[in-house]
C-alpha cells in the first residue's frame, strides 16, 4: 500500500474536523469535531510507525487516545456547568469575556 493513501485520508479527516470546530454552534458538536481531529492524528502516527517499522507510532497513538478521553471528560463537565449557569450551550452566546 502507498503511504500517501493513509496520509491523505488523515488530512481529509483533519480538515473536516477543523471545519466542524469552526462552523458549529453547539459546544458538544465542537468537542466531537475535535475528536475527529485527534483521530486523524492517530491515523498519521500509526501509518508513519508502520512506514518506519517501529512500534513507537502505536504507543503514541495509545497516549493520544488516553489524552482524548481526559479531554472529553473535562470538556463535557465544563459544558454541563455552562448549561447550568446560562441555560444554553450555544458558543455564540458564551461571550462574557469579550472585550
Amino acid at each position: 500500500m502507498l503511504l500517501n493513501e493513509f496520509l491523505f485520508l488523515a488530512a481529509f479527516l483533519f480538515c473536516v474536523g477543523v471545519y466542524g470546530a469552526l462552523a458549529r454552534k453547539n459546544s458538544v458538536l465542537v468537542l466531537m469535531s475535535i475528536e475527529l481531529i485527534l483521530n486523524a492524528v492517530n491515523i498519521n502516527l500509526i501509518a508513519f510507525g508502520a512506514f518506519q517499522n517501529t512500534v513507537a507510532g502505536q504507543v503514541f497513538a495509545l497516549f493520544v487516545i488516553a489524552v482524548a478521553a481526559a479531554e472529553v471528560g473535562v470538556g463535557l463537565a465544563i459544558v454541563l456547568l455552562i448549561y447550568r449557569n446560562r441555560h444554553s450551550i450555544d458558543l455564540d452566546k458564551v461571550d462574557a469575556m469579550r472585550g
Partner: protein
Amino acid sequence: MPTLALVHNLNVAQQIVFAALALAMALSALRMVTTRNLVHSALYLTVVLAGAAGIYILLAAEFVAITQVLVYIGAIVVLMLFGLFLTRAPLGDKQELDNNQRWLAAVIALFLFGLLGVTLQRGYRGTHVNATVLTNGGSNTAAVGISIFHDYVIPFEVASILLLAALVGAVVIARRD
C-alpha cells in the same frame, strides 16, 4: 512463483478494504459536520471511529484498534450522547446548528487541505508502506506492551496521573454544591 501471486492478491484485497473504509469514513465525516440532527451527528462520528479501527487493523496495529473501539466508541461517543441529552439539546431536524462564519470555515478547511495535499504529494509520492509483525514469533500487541513498559514507562505513569487529574477535575467542575 506462488508466493508472489499470494502477495499480489493480498495487496489487491488490502486496497479494496482500504477504499471501502476510506469512502465510508470520508462521507460520514462530511455528514457529521453538516447534518442538522445532533444525534445523527454522534452516530456518524461512530462510523468514522469504527472505520479508523479498521484502518489500524490494515496497518497491523490490532491493539490500538481494540482500544479505539473500547475507549472511543464505548466511552467517548456514549459520553457525547449523555452530554447532548443532559443539556436538553433540541433533538429535531430543523434547528440551525451552524454559526454565521460557516463559509469562512469552509475556505479555511479547503485551504488547509490543499496545503497538506501538496506537501504530502511532494514529500511522500510513491512511498510504500507494508504492515508487518515487528517481533520474531510474537505479535504487535506484545511488542507494544514491551515498548510501553520498557521504553515509555515515565510517559505511561504521567498519562495515569493525567487521567486521575481529569477524573477529579470533572467531578469537581460538574458537582452541584
